């Protein structure tokens, strides 16, 4: 199915861009007139995925983070968060709750949060090449009612 609208944004893996990333995706999804909760779900999942690029993908340097978001006719939103960092060797293990290589202040719950706040989560990765996290979310189509009220 062809997407109705799409956008792509690229920025360096600085932690100050975590809030920027959330805002960009939220502004883009706003056109579907999502419920507050749906929007926070998306903001939270995007925050986790982008933080992983910043913390894990590029642990010792600043690299490029790319987000592609697409909207499909039925209210389906597909968001891809991509890095060209170190990659994940064992994806299954990485996605287990509480598994982390991030030390003291990480808690190994990023993927669990992404999973529970979206309708679909997919991770592909290649050691030394980078990682793509795909988040899918269905926005309830209450657009017309909202506009008319």
């Amino acid at each position, binding site marked *: 199915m062809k997407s109705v609208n799409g956008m792509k944004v690229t920025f360096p893996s600085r932690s100050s861009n975590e*809030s920027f990333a959330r805002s960009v995706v939220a502004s883009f999804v706003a056109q579907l007139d999502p419920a507050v909760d749906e929007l926070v779900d998306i903001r939270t999942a995007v*925050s986790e995925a982008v933080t992983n690029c910043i913390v894990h993908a590029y642990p010792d340097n600043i690299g490029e983070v790319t987000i592609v978001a697409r909207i499909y006719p039925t209210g389906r939103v597909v968001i891809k968060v991509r890095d060209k960092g170190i990659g994940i060797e064992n994806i299954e293990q990485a996605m287990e709750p509480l598994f982390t290589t991030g030390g003291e202040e990480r808690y190994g719950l990023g993927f669990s949060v992404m999973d529970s706040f979206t309708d679909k989560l997919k991770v592909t990765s290649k050691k030394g090449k980078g990682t793509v996290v795909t988040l899918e979310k269905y926005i309830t189509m209450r657009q017309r009612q909202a506009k008319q009220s």
Partner: protein
Amino acid sequence: MSVRIESSNEGMTAFLMGEIDHHTARQIREAIDTAVEKSKPKNLYLDFSEVSFMDSSGIGLIMGRFKLMQHYSGKLTVTGASERITKIISLAGLKRLGIFNNAQ
């Protein structure tokens, strides 16, 4: 600053404000730890009532302060967590720790 720290007889309260993510958690953490290490309070309260957004970095923030207070034989209590923040905290199984004022 995204945290305001106040002390009283009952202990120390850190009022967290705004969005908690990996970026802001660092500053909040440093401010709280500096204050705790200085006055070693019996009780540390983390007040989430003015937090508008939190991702899993907030879990690390809570757990780290839990361990710090254990180290000083003190007690950590989380207050004012919204439904949304409670949901993230539940994911982490942190409710078992008995540190939630509104979850006991």
